[in-house]
């Protein structure tokens, strides 16, 4: 209820700004929203959305199953972390956009290239959050299991991982939107295999600013929906945190 109020208020402000001429040169929000709603009935656009979403889902999944274990490793073995850190820090600031040509060269299928770039980019928030989460685990909690004779792996799995889960969840939350951004940007720059970005290229070269903004709205709305979905899942999985 309050949520919708917030969104409505925001939209009203934008609309008013547009109507009053504060935002020149762009179609008013209502026009963009109507266009965006119209896109829901556009089969080819929906298949573009499908292409983007499938790449995002695959990329996120691969990133989670690789980056979280990697973060657990780096977070628990300091020597490995110290050694790998320069390499990680070297790689992190490289924009995925600069890697597009390389990925497209390596993968003949543009869909695969897109997924590879998504994995690359959204691994970092997962990795870093996992590492910081591990640093935040209460030592008494760890000692408790160690005291019962559990080995390092069991402590990692039964104490460190659940304790870190809130950090990982935050990482996933960030990663979700990163996947969308990377997917759309790759499609935008490199085309191929459809997607919201490819739609943006088409709309752009036809000077359909309303459609470009409408497709952008879709990207944002997808991110919003994915986040809501994830929050619901998080509330179930990390029930203990939301209750306190």
């Amino acid at each position, binding site marked *: 209820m309050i949520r919708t109020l917030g969104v409505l208020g925001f939209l009203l402000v934008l609309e008013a700004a547009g109507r009053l001429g504060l935002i*020149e*040169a*762009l179609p008013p929000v209502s026009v963009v929203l109507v266009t965006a709603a119209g896109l829901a009935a556009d089969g080819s656009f929906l298949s573009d959305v499908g292409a983007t979403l499938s790449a995002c889902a695959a990329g996120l999944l691969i990133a989670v199953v690789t980056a979280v274990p990697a973060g657990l490793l780096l977070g628990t073995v300091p020597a490995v972390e110290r050694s790998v850190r320069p390499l990680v820090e070297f790689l992190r600031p490289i924009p995925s956009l600069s890697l*597009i*040509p*390389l*990925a*497209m*060269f*390596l993968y*003949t*299928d*543009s869909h695969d290239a897109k997924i590879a770039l998504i994995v690359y980019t959204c691994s970092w928030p997962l990795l870093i959050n996992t590492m910081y989460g591990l640093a935040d685990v209460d030592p008494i909690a760890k000692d408790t299991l160690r005291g019962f004779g559990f080995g390092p792996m069991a402590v990692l799995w039964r104490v460190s991982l659940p304790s870190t889960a809130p950090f990982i969840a935050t990482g996933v939350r960030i990663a979700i939107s990163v996947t969308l951004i990377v997917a759309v940007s790759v499609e*935008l*720059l*490199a*085309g*191929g*295999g*459809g997607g919201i970005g*490819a739609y943006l*290229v*088409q*709309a*752009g*070269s*036809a*000077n*359909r*600013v309303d*459609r*470009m903004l409408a497709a952008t709205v879709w990207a944002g709305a997808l991110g919003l929906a994915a986040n809501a979905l994830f929050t619901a899942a998080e509330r179930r999985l990390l029930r203990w945190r939301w209750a306190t």
Partner: protein
Amino acid sequence: GGGDGGAAQEKTTLTVGVVPVPSSAPLFIAEKNGLFKAEGLTVKTEIIQAPQAVMPKILNGSMDAFLTSYVSLLAINDSGAAKLRLFQHVQTAAPGIASVVVPKDSPIRTAADLKGKTVGVNVLRALGQTVTNAHLQQAGLKPDDVKFTAVPFADQLTALSTKKIDAAWLVEPFLTAARKDLGAVEVIDTTSGPTAGLPLDAWGVSEEWLTKNPKTAAAFHRALAKAQQIASADRNAINAVIPTYTQIPAAAASAMKLGEFSAEVDKASFQKLADLLHGYGYLKSKPDVTTMIPSKIG
């Protein structure tokens, strides 16, 4: 013509990178008229923005041919990363299809007024900057007197109307939109005078692809050439396909001013373009365009 049948061809399915602009129309005319099918070819298209971005795909063989501007063709060959060949000419500039425009209330009225101003172009060190430079020089300015900045065409109108740039180099359909929606005023017609008749777009392939797939190339070329003839003879044929692969509505498509669709490129104009680019330092070495035009395809 007529196909020799698919059996003899090296490959029958082609992936072609198309830019959603009028220059890609002949390919869709060919598809619509069954010219590819007649040659035993299946053509798949992928939307691209510029050939530079898909060079990796061309180099690793996942893309066969692509629409390219002559400027991109020259730039890529100049870099040495790949050897590209002109496969089929598409469009030559005609007056009034690419201009530098300013907002209607701008004090800028002539090329000379642009001194010290910011001009938006879609890509730096490419066609827009080159042709504008030529006109600036004619007006007595040096290329450095104007600051060029890269803004995608679609965003230039916004930038122009909110005065975030002083002038914009635009092509169709943006030019018409700028005139109609913003009342923009043309300062320079960049496809006239010293820059009249420059070649704009063509289909490109890599040299390697050409030598590896001579039969396919021949078949593909025959189909494209036929479509090119249809396009140059009948504007309506172009108008009819544009809405199928772009988001330009039919009415706007027929209102657009287009260049000249012809079968062959004028070598002299091509060389002139190359020399201009080299002259402004946008190419490292002075190219000889004849090396980029294969003697005979097939």
